[in-house]
């Protein structure tokens, strides 16, 4: 497997991975804002978010219809749809693509669910590797607490209830997340994860991430092309005035 840089794509793919509650979504959002404000071409894609596959996935999850095999396949379908229709074309067009979870999420979760690792990896081998993968490593207890504090109702598959680890959803979630963490740690070296200490303050983590990104990528390569200025039109009465007068009326 090769990275997008090794495959000579002009774009670069940056992925974040980690347990639920490790703070990775917050960090990738802040990274996205920073890149956008510099006028760079940025696209953000989230795990399990393809419009086409969503209907099937949410129905399946609600009705608890999934086995480890179909859980794996339906997520692979979702990933393939986003990969082929969004990620690859945007990377061809020189975008910085930010992914909240990438194939490693499947490698970890599906294997914990009992799918053979070689089978799962084989399915995802149509996808190139990220150019940078940030792995958010928090103490298991911290991650668990963040989730359990904020959202006391755990969903069936999220808690790994299908694995019959425990009849108590919280206990099941703890064991499940612990096993996923083991899987992540086991592939950390193989896939050159850049470890981020997720126990640190938000700002400190973001500072490290931005610095690493600036070191590894020449960010100016991803600037939006300066568009030719539109031809000047004859001036019209500025619409702003209308807005202001409206606003004054509203205040009264």
């Amino acid at each position: 497997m090769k990275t997008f840089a090794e495959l000579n794509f002009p774009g670069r793919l940056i992925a974040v991975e980690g347990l639920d509650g490790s703070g990775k979504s917050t960090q990738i959002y802040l990274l996205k804002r920073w890149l956008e404000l510099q006028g760079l071409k940025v696209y953000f894609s989230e795990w399990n978010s393809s419009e086409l596959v969503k209907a099937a996935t949410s129905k399946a999850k609600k009705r608890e219809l999934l086995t480890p095999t179909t859980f794996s396949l339906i997520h692979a379908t979702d990933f393939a749809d986003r990969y082929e229709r969004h990620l690859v074309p945007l990377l061809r067009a020189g975008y910085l693509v930010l992914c909240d979870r990438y194939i490693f999420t499947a490698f970890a979760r599906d294997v914990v669910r009992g799918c053979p690792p070689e089978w799962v990896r084989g399915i995802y081998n149509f996808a190139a590797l990220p150019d940078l993968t940030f792995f958010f490593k928090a103490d298991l207890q911290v991650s668990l607490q963040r989730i359990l504090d904020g959202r006391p109702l755990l969903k069936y598959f999220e808690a790994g209830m299908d694995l019959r680890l425990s009849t108590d959803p919280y206990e099941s979630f703890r064991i499940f997340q612990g096993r996923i963490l083991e899987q992540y740690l086991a592939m950390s070296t193989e896939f050159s994860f850049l470890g981020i200490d997720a126990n640190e303050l938000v700002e400190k983590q973001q500072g490290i991430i931005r610095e690493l990104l600036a070191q590894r990528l020449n960010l100016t390569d991803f600037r939006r092309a300066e568009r030719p200025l539109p031809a000047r039109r004859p001036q019209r009465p500025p619409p702003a005035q209308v807005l202001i007068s409206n606003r004054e009326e509203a205040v009264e």
Partner: protein
Amino acid sequence: MKRLLQNHIVVPGPSRRRFYGHGIPNVELDQLAGKLIVVEGADGSGRSTQIALLVEWLEGCGHATVQVGLKRSTLVSEELENAQEGNILSRTTLSLFYATDFADQLENIILPALKAGFVVLADRYIYTLMARDMVRGMDEAWLKNLYGIALEPDAVFYLNVAPEELVQRSFAKNSALDYWESGMDLGLSRDMFDSFMKYQVLMQKTFRHLQTTYGFTIVDGLRSADALNADLRKKISAVLAGK
């Protein structure tokens, strides 16, 4: 003695079971007492007619039957239909969507039915799915890994019908050619008739290639339905008798 034989119900012997690859986790293969019979072939090759006749015959012989087919899972069949309607899924996505549909039926219908000792009749199996994808340029090794979840059937019959005859049957039945069965998404020809002929030739070539790996039985689908069914019954009887 003769009367006894006529009423005698053949109790099928055990099958030597295996998955093609990694299989489904936690399945005990030696508990799958039933038989899995697959009928493959293009649209218009007579699959559904043959299966209907086989069900009648098998039930008459005292065997319980279950039927499965493509795009029939409770999990994704509806969504798959919708997505296909708009022809918006790219090839890997469509391939995985079909694999999900297959896996759902395998785990929720085929395996439990085999465990309960049923004869499962599958109206197409992984071979059609693989052939369709291969014709669209998907990697064969990737597909073999993906469908390594599949159970090896007890028998696979491929109903071989020449494209010239398929096109006639399709017109006789619907007065039209199906978009997907004509491979129109491949851009082989803008003329639907040409595209159908070219696509079916490609599919047959791919099936012949898959036959070398999976060793299914190619049967002549040009015979009358009854003659063809008699042939299939003879072959299935041998399978049930454990030959």
